[in-house]
């Protein structure tokens, strides 16, 4: 892992030159218990940074995953971290982008960059209730549309039922 650190460092430098202050924090594997560099961004520049990473030389063009974590703690100004896992098929390296959001805050959608982000963002919405701004079709994906609550939040009750006696009906407006 450590042999890649110089390459990662130059990529992070490049990113810092291009975006400066919108990069809030960088955690490198040498100094923090992380396996790849983790870059914390300000959310308003998220799309530009992702596009930069996707299209510049480093070519982090493969979106491995979009997910979120619930960091519910007293006194923090944010609650969730939305996590983007990127992989470069050129340099065979990975990098992780994170955006911190408070409850009720929105995150810009990355569907314009990757069509596949559609379902991943829907899952984050379903599980955490984070709304993606500009998403073409933001609705629940794993749970029923009538479900109440967001199961992967830390304050979601572990026991309980929500029973639906009929199946979800077909909605022609979802066709595309």
């Amino acid at each position, binding site marked *: 892992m450590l042999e890649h650190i110089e390459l990662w460092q130059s990529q992070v430098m490049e990113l810092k030159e291009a975006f400066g202050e919108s990069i809030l924090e960088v955690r490198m594997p040498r100094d923090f218990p*992380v*396996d790849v560099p983790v870059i914390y961004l300000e959310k308003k520049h998220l799309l530009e940074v992702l596009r930069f990473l996707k299209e510049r030389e480093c070519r982090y063009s493969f979106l491995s995953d979009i997910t979120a974590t619930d960091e519910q703690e007293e006194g923090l100004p944010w609650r969730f971290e939305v996590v983007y896992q990127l992989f470069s098929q050129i340099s*065979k390296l990975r990098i992780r982008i994170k955006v911190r959001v408070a409850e009720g805050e929105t995150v810009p959608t990355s569907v314009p960059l990757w069509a596949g982000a559609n*379902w991943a963002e829907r899952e984050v919405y379903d599980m955490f209730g984070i709304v993606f701004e500009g998403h073409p079709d933001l609705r629940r994906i794993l749970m029923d549309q009538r479900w109440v609550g967001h199961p992967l939040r830390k304050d*979601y009750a572990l026991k309980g039922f929500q029973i639906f006696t009929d199946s979800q009906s077909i909605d022609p407006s979802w066709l595309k």
Partner: protein
Amino acid sequence: MKVVDWSKEDPDDLWGNASDERILVNIGPTHPAMHGALRMVAELQGETIEKSYCEFGFTHRAKEKLGENRTYHNFIVYTDRLNYCSALINNVVYAMSVEKLMGIELPERCIWIRMICCELARITDHLICIGINAVDLGAFSFFLYGFHQREEAYTLIEKLCGARLTTSYTRIGGLMADAPEGFEQELQAWVVKTLAVIEEMDRLLSNNKIWKKRTVGVGVFDKEDCIQYSFSGPNARAAGIDFDLRRDQPCMFYREVDFEVPILKNGDVYDRYRIRFEEMKQSLQILQQCASRMKKGPIWCEDKRVRIPDKDVVHNTMEGMIYHFKFFMQGFEVPEGEAYTQFEAANGELGFYIVSKGRAQAHRMRIRGPSFWHYQGLSRMIQGEKIADMVAALGSINIIAGELDR
């Protein structure tokens, strides 16, 4: 019997394509051609799919939530039920991801056995994928050839861990049990037999005229689409993306074994079928090398934190008993940190993203299953195709509901 007046009807328009009527068709979630509880709603013009959407989540078992509320050891059994066609790969990747967080080094024999597990599981998964794909299109006997060999593979797996389907074979820092005496020879014999069967299957179907008509040029998903939809594994390689995590981000001993990464370029159903054949041949090669290079030795790491105490100690000493109880009831603590561990599973990139806050349970257990991303591409893949080709396309991308719904 209804008598058709051919003078009034258009004789070429058997299915009423000329009429402008669009119908809405619901397929699944319990339709036999849908490979598990998947649902698709399609708008048809005649037989052509104009628009569609997919729905899933019918087998959602809250695995990620369970991962946050079970100890790391307890979560092993849940990983079997992700991709149940290749349960061993899930076990191995999960164990690897926790070991990565804890910084555990494994002994050589353990790694070789894990590699054997991965490749065996990959072959069983590919055999079921191409077999079922052929069954859906009407080639039943082809499927039985593969199914027999798959049963033999399960017998081998049973010798390793006593279970055929839901294996739970790996432990954090080791394996449930060592491979039995003579396992290498049995594996070698199986490899020779399987190679012959695969070649026979190849001769049976690959050049069949009907099969080719049903699959060549059907469900095309090209390179750009694959990147857009994060396709990985055989489905991406069938479209010409040179991407295999066993070679690109090697773990275990994949750096030391010889194998090629087959690449095809059309990205249709036929290429996705062909690439699985080629990959099985490569996997057999890897298996042969593993079996010949495997040596006797320990299968557990030295690390005391994760070591399950021997039964002898548990039953005969007080300390052993207490330790055993604490190990299974409280679990071991994993140091603070986060890691994303990926591996080339049978269908593509399988990843575990674990965030630990230093407790015996994970803070976040994210499972990145390849089927989730592949199923998303289906609507685009079948747009403008015939409804019968949807079945071919769905079978060829090998959606496993357990991994999709988690």
